[in-house]
């Protein structure tokens, strides 16, 4: 059993779970303590000692089932398929197997271990033989789907499938000559043929199982990875749902970083002045020691989000991002614009995310069907809200800077940058297309502290990393 736990641990590691040596040893001690009788206790023991992140639990469960019961389940499944193929229920099958065993004894036929296990449907013995054959054929080396055939073949050879087929053929011939009742004979022949087929299936399944053990998380990772790289523009319903989850996670991560940052500045230096003042009442004997408190640097964010037609698909996600941001920090003001500027802070505070975004995009706040005019929107911002920008404010602009050849009024950004802590522009367009056609990105660029292309989650992650650093 120890060897199996070692192998299982290395399997966990292969699948990206981090199991340290100490944890591995804890796993040993725990299973020693509990024994192997209770399967769930065994599983819980391994899990509580070796899996420490709740996100890894699902992978652990899957691998545990694959590793500790995969083969057994597969052997058992073959019994079910056997019953279905012969159209027998459990009792009738057992009866048939018993009859065959009796017959073999009568005819004094000695079978090989494998044939015996197969024809007696000895699942334990079969499982053992499969395991041994898998070890001989080194199936654990499998890595890709296309290797399945090769390893199946090797394993079949290790099990001795060729000799077995010959043996079973011989057996069938013997039964033919035994002068049995034709109906029973036919049934027995079918059983024997079927068992050979079953064994081939079992081997294939064993190989497939081995492949899955190495593979599932790799596949899962791949899927997430691809999704994160995908453009916001082309997404299906399902993908949008998953994207939402990711944005929520992102928000969580942001929260954590902020929380940690705030905690680091918990206590200032010894404050001599205040200590003396506070202890005047004790005749200058310093009973109470004072430290100066550091100011908490609460981030203030102002977000301007373009919701014009050209970025329609992206703006939904951008608004989602804005919403999470507003949820996160207490001092966020959000605006949307096409050609005029409208504040949506209140709206986002009061309504839940889906309704709020819907509301923002229907045109009740600003005319969303107008032609984009960044210049006009910026001028509006300058006129009405510039006074709200101070040296602790981060201003984020989300938009493609496609201005329909209107006046860009980049001087607004210059003013904003001078007053604000930083000015960030996130552009959903590919960097290569900036400045072509009616894109005014080149004019706006010099006035921004950070300009990033932000078309997919990965890029957004990167931006956020920079934002909270």
């Amino acid at each position, binding site marked *: 059993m120890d060897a199996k736990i070692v192998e299982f641990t290395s399997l966990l590691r292969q699948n990206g779970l981090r199991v*340290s040596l*100490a944890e591995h040893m804890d796993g040993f001690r725990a299973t020693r*303590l509990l024994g192997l009788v209770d399967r769930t206790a065994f599983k819980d023991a391994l899990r*509580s*000692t070796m899996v*420490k992140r709740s996100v890894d639990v699902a992978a652990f469960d899957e691998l545990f089932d694959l590793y500790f019961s995969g083969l057994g389940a597969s052997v058992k499944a073959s019994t079910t398929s056997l019953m279905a193929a012969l159209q027998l229920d459990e009792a009738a099958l057992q009866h048939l197997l018993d009859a065959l065993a009796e017959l073999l004894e009568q005819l004094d036929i000695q079978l090989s271990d494998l044939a015996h296990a197969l024809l007696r449907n000895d699942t334990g013995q079969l499982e053992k033989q499969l395991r041994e054959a898998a070890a001989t054929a080194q199936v654990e080396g499998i890595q890709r789907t296309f290797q399945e055939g090769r390893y199946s073949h090797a394993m079949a050879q290790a099990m001795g499938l060729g000799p077995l087929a010959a043996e079973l053929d011989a057996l069938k011939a013997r039964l033919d000559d035994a002068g049995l009742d034709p109906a029973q004979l036919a049934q027995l022949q079918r059983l024997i043929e079927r068992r050979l087929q079953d064994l081939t299936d079992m081997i294939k399944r064993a190989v497939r199982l081995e492949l899955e053990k190495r593979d599932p998380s790799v596949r899962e990772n791949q899927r997430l990875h691809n999704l994160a790289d995908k453009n916001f523009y082309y997404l299906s319903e399902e993908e949008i749902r998953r994207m939402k989850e990711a944005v929520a996670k992102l928000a969580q991560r942001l929260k954590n970083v902020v*929380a*940690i940052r705030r905690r680091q500045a918990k206590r200032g230096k010894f404050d001599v002045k205040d200590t003396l003042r506070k202890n005047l009442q004790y005749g200058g004997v310093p009973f109470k020691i004072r430290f100066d408190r550091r100011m908490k640097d609460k981030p203030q964010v102002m977000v301007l989000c373009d919701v014009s037609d050209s970025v329609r698909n992206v703006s939904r996600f951008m608004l989602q991002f804005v919403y999470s941001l507003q949820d996160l920090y207490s001092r966020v003001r959000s605006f949307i614009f096409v050609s005029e500027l409208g504040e949506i802070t209140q709206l986002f505070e009061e309504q839940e995310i889906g309704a709020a975004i819907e509301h923002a995009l229907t045109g009740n706040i600003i005319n969303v069907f107008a032609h984009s005019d960044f210049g006009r929107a910026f001028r509006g911002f300058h006129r009405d809200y510039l006074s709200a920008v101070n040296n602790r404010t981060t201003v984020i602009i989300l938009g493609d800077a496609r201005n329909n050849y209107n006046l860009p009024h980049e001087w607004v950004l210059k003013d904003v940058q001078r007053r604000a802590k930083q000015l960030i522009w996130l552009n959903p367009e590919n960097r290569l297309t900036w400045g072509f056609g009616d894109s005014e990105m080149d004019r706006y660029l010099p006035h921004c502290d950070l300009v990033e292309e932000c078309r997919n989650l990965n890029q957004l992650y990167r931006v956020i990393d920079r934002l909270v650093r």
Partner: protein
Amino acid sequence: MPTSEATFASIDDVITRFAAQKYICSRRIATVVYLASHLEKPILVEGPAGVGKTELAKVLANALGHELIRLQCYEGLDEAKALYEWEYAKQLLYTQILKDKISEVLGGAMSLKEAVDRIALEDDVFFSDRFILPRPLLRAISAPEPIVLLIDEIDKADSEFEAFLLEVLSDFQVSVPELGTLRARHIPLVVLTSNNAREMSDALKRRCLHLYIDFPPAAQELEIVRLKVPQISTALADEVVSVVQRIRQIDLKKTPSISETLDWAKALALLNAEHLDEALLHDTLSTILKYEGDLRKAQDELKEYLQRQQAQRAAGPAHSDKDVLH
């Protein structure tokens, strides 16, 4: 009495002893508790708020007949608050009161150096057990009896504090510079709880057994409600649990916890309710849902459910306890 025994004999023993404390736990929880008590390892309990993480520690202490020492973590918690502190004010007070005595000691000192040397000879007096203010961790380590130490909401503490905890958790010893290293007489059973506000460091996790407690399945929650709120009728308890389980499926800002289910059940029992109807739901739903938006969502969702429930009761009261959710 079996509860006075200091260790658990088996996993089933954990379950029965916890049940005696009115705590219903799954086999998984029992297994981890059993392992922790035998491997002498801390348990790190994670899970959503209100699933009984803190309760687990309390029950564990009761079941073993140990004292529970609790350390509540929060932002800015430091060693002085968690481990020990010198009672500075008391020390000062003593020096003030004992001024005469001190002058006596210093009397006849010819030079400043000599005076300082004499004071230095006496400084043991001021840095002794008398002036130390033990905080939860020191109390846990110096306890003469075995105890259960609960470190609650460790995720709220700073990461430096977490690093400091490592020393305590792996060796169960702390060093006080003035007094030397203090070693635990009994290895305390430690329970750490975390709400996952941030990921704990790998180093800490490595030293702990990990336990994730999720919301219980309907059957188990029903058992809990019946046990904790015995005055509620079976049918109503059933309805309460199925409604709560249903509400947890909805996408809410804050999902109702077990403790809130219990509060609701108690409220309904107090109101002498027989069945849930719309008016009652409207009035009492605020015990489990704490946000306006959540309330509205849940009410919409439950309207349909109630109608079906009512239709069924009209059709035949015999089936009223059947699960109509699916």
